[in-house]
């Protein structure tokens, strides 16, 4: 096939249309942003007067969001990997049965999300490491979430990790 200028033009338009189709919804940013201190004093920037912290900088650089997908029975897939990542290896049985592990991770932050995946329904807690509080870890509770058939994973919960630096 010969590539002509009109062909390139049509191809370009198609790619552009596809890009727009997949573009995330635009964020309407507020026109007026006012930032104040705890005492109500107006601040030029949110970060005015705060100290630079190499420790925080390193921690934030290492921040990772983990989002285990719903897992069918007999597979531990993403959840198992997330558990391993958090130092909670071996917390899920093959039949989708949970048992409590020890408290692992530091600076863990959890947020609730709706489960996604086939035959899966319900809320589950996902989160990040290095985004939360210093001695906040996570442990696996003894219950399934999103229903037992098939299970989506186990209930992750906060715990206090005294081993955090």
């Amino acid at each position: 096939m010969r590539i002509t200028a009109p062909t390139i033009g049509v191809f370009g338009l198609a790619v552009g249309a596809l890009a727009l189709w997949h573009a995330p919804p635009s964020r309407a940013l507020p026109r007026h942003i006012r930032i104040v201190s705890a005492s109500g004093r107006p601040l030029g920037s949110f970060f005015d007067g705060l100290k630079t912290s190499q420790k925080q900088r390193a921690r934030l650089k290492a921040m990772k969001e983990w989002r285990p997908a719903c897992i069918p029975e007999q597979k531990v897939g993403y959840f198992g990997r997330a558990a391993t990542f958090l130092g909670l290896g071996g917390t899920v049985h093959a039949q989708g049965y949970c048992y409590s592990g020890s408290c692992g991770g530091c600076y863990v932050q959890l947020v609730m999300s709706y489960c996604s995946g086939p035959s899966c329904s319900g809320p589950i807690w996902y989160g990040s490491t290095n985004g939360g509080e210093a001695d906040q870890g996570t442990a696996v509770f003894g219950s399934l979430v999103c229903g037992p058939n098939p299970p989506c994973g186990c209930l992750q919960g906060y715990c206090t990790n005294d081993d955090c630096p």
Partner: protein
Amino acid sequence: MPRTQSLSYLAMAIAVPTAMLGQPSGLVASGAVTVPFAFEGKRPPVWGGNAVLVADGPLVSPGNFMGFNHDGRQVFQAGFFIPGASNTAVDGFARGADGTVALCGRSYASDGRGAPFIAWISADGNSQQVIRTEPYSPRVIAVAPDGTLWTVGKELNSDGSEKSGVNLDAGVVRHFDRTGKSLGTFIPRSSIQDSTHLTNQQSLLAAAADRAGWLHFDRSNRGAYVEISSDGNIATYPMPQTQAKGMRFGGIAFTDSGDVFAEVDNPDGNSNFSLFALNRSAGQWLPVRIPASGRWALLLGGSGNELAFTYGPGSSYSTIHFFVPDSK
């Protein structure tokens, strides 16, 4: 025992025989709406001010908020943005009666500077105010009908730790006006033994015209429900009681009449979720019938006399179901 707390227990004891008067015992369906948003893998929405508030973007740091009314029509859209931030975690968000959106979380610059905040976005999405709250780090937020903000959190030092440099007698529940001025701090941190009770996972907060309600609990179902009135009185109640162990709470909400409801999932995964209403004079939560079934539910909030839920399986996450107390 604090004086206000002992008085509340005394009031309960006296009033138990007449406890059932005016207690909602059931709900009836009042409608449903399917909003044009795919919630799979997203944060659950909240309901307030007759609209559902949706958070879009990364799970931990959503930066786009949308509101849909009772008819599914979009009534709000705004980005949330802190200039100069490289990372902004949003722990909690809520919508007030006038459409104002409130948020709480922590924001950091790339050089490691950071602080916790509360923020609000005006109902038209055009104005945003961010109030730095260090050393207090709020994790859960609710908006009262008068626009004031209630939060649950704790003081943390600049390393995000309680190990040094924080006041353990500082209040964990705080009440702010719209400018960020403190209207009250309640319940000293030192009175809460397990710090996980102060997380966004183990704290549920709702606000009514004259009070805030805070349900805090741990994975062994230990905890309490506390009501803090605007004038500072504190009443403590036991948690909703079920036979199940390891139950999961899926939300608390007030109706305008002042009734407060709590949703509980039964963790065996087979039985229906449960709904309870607090009988203040009896000092206990009583079961409430709801014509809906599912292994799980989330109580997204209350507005007027109406409560909003999602539940499943069998119903789309995008479908919000409404119920009102049965007047029969």
